[in-house]
């Protein structure tokens, strides 16, 4: 309500108006309360509780020795070899999956942006992996990687690439690669769709102007297509980073963090710390470090790409 309205309405009217507004905001709150209560119980309280737990030394094997230790869990994890290893493993996993899903997704989007017979069918098929829950993806790939009956062994053998079968996901040299492959397979559809959507908004006139300007196919790609995709790139980088940092289901099904700790990513470490070793204080601090790292990286990406992306509109 503007002040001009106030003058025109007079005091009685203002009072009435304010009561009405108060009543309205109350009913808005009342109507939304189921959602709000749900959120409070399902998100706000658990997150708060988790943080509170991370400030304690709390191991369910010694429940009576639980005590408040402030940020000690956080200070200690900086020296914990298992944590530093997990950071490293997670970084390798993230770099691998982001790089490959970005590259493959981009190539696929460029392909699907061209006209060819059967394009819509291929587009639909591309989406299939994305529709699967990660656990199912893990199971599918665990069969592909299987040491005795796996598809991969069969294929490689038939081409004479290997002689002995191996359990790829459990092999120290290939466990990480197996994990990355499965994750990339799962994420590529999303990346493709994001890029494809952006590609389809590029006006033909840009390409035509560039053709008249004498730009080759390659320079058209680098000078027009790629800059235009910077916003889509930002979305892909952020989502893929989050997906990579919080990966758990795939590890659970495929490698169980092994062999040794070769694929013990942060998510897996958090899980084993909390639920195998029942060290809930430390486990929760890992969870918060993970969330914080994701946040930091997102801010970094946005800083890096936002301005350039904005120019593309």
């Amino acid at each position, binding site marked *: 309500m503007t002040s001009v309205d106030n003058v025109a309405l007079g005091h009685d009217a203002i009072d009435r108006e304010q009561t009405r507004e108060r009543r309205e905001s109350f009913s808005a709150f009342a109507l939304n309360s189921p959602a709000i209560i749900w959120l409070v119980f399902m998100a706000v309280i658990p997150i708060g509780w988790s943080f509170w737990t991370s400030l304690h030394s709390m191991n369910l094997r010694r429940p009576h020795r639980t005590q408040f230790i402030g940020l000690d869990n956080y200070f200690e994890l900086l020296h914990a070899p298992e944590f530093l290893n997990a950071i490293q493993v997670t970084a390798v996993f993230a770099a691998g999956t982001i790089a490959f899903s970005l590259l493959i997704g981009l190539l696929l989007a460029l392909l699907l942006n061209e006209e060819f017979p059967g394009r819509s069918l291929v587009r639909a098929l591309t989406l299939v992996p994305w529709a699967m829950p990660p656990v199912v993806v893990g199971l599918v790939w665990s069969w592909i990687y299987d040491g005795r009956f796996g598809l991969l062994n069969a294929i490689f053998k038939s081409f004479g690439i290997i002689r002995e079968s191996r359990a790829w996901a459990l092999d120290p040299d290939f466990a990480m690669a197996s994990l990355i492959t499965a994750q990339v397979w799962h994420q590529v559809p999303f990346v493709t769709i994001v890029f494809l959507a952006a590609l389809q908004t590029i*006006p033909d*006139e*840009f390409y*035509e*102007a*560039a*053709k*008249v*300007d*004498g*730009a*080759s196919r390659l*320079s058209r790609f680098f*000078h*027009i297509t790629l*800059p*235009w995709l*910077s916003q889509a790139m930002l979305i892909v980088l952020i989502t893929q980073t989050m997906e990579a940092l919080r990966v758990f289901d795939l590890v659970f099904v495929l490698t169980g963090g092994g062999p040794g700790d070769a694929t013990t990513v942060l998510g897996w470490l958090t899980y084993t710390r909390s639920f195998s070793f029942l060290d809930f204080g430390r486990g929760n601090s890992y969870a918060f470090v993970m969330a914080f790292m994701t946040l930091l990286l997102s801010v970094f990406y946005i800083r890096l790409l936002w301005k*350039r992306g904005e*120019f*593309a*509109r």
Partner: protein
Amino acid sequence: MATIEISDLHKRYGAVEIFRNLNLHVQDKEFVVLVGPSGCGKSTLLRMLAGLEDVTDGTISFDGTDVTDLKPKHRDVAMVFQNYALYPHMSVAKNMAFGLRMRGVTNAEIEQRVAAAAGVLGLTEYLERHPRELSGGQRQRVAMGRAIVRTPQVFLFDEPLSNLDALLRVDMRAEVKSLHQRLNATFVYVTHDQVEAMTMADRMVVMNNGTIEQVGAPLQVYDKPANVFVASFIGSPAMNMIRAKPSVANGQKVIRSDDGLTFPHPKNNTGCEGGLIVGFRPRDLNVVDKDTSGAIEAKVEIVEHTGVETLVYVRAGSHKLCMSIDKQEWSGLGESVCVLPDPANTHYFDETTKQRVG
């Protein structure tokens, strides 16, 4: 030097035929405007000249060299697009430099040429901005700057002014025209705006439905429209047209419409046996005394003031005619007046062929 020769051009999109047997010759350094209603194929023709659209059949030559199958970059043409097509992530300077960069021109020369073009177009202070930080008119200028830095032989414009407001359009019209004089190049300019066509063209090409209806200097087209389409398309308000047949009145050969309006018989008698269409522009319809011979009685229905002129719509028989007179207060709504088209500027077209007969 750049003449353009379009011969026997055909264009089909699948089963849809856009052009059949199109022929056009554009002289060196000529400013040719393609004008016609929406969908008549102006853009398609222009894009074929640029090399952006395949030619189904026929040839296009620049200076006697067949370029029909050449890629755009080998044609020495520049094109200004309707929506400007400025690269959004590049600064004005980079946009203008892009064509030169792609052609491997040295940095020093690029810089000098961009600066020169920016000077001509008044863009010097905007060189570091991005397109989204410019007004529509400034973007328009950048688009032209991008074309002129390359100093090509042929410039192609596809409705470059249609996104500007009316006032700016008038300014830019003059600017494009002076650019043409300065650059000494061949211009092919597409528009659906007949005023633009009239004011800018050395020669205008009136197109309709994939065919060329008339080619000629603006005044020639205006004064002697080759057929009914050109007569009705060029000129605003549109020409009055009345269907009529040869007849005899008071022993004189005249042309008479169904509802009894009579007009003098065209001077050269050829081909007047069947039905005719008589046409005269609003400007050529005058108020006359009642006893003037040939005067048509009419009733005033609507009066409009455009500022420069006053448009009087009158009803004569079953026809509604538009008359344009010098600006004046006109109070005679519903009054009867006598009007007479100027016989020297009355056009006659064959009703069946729609072609001019006198």
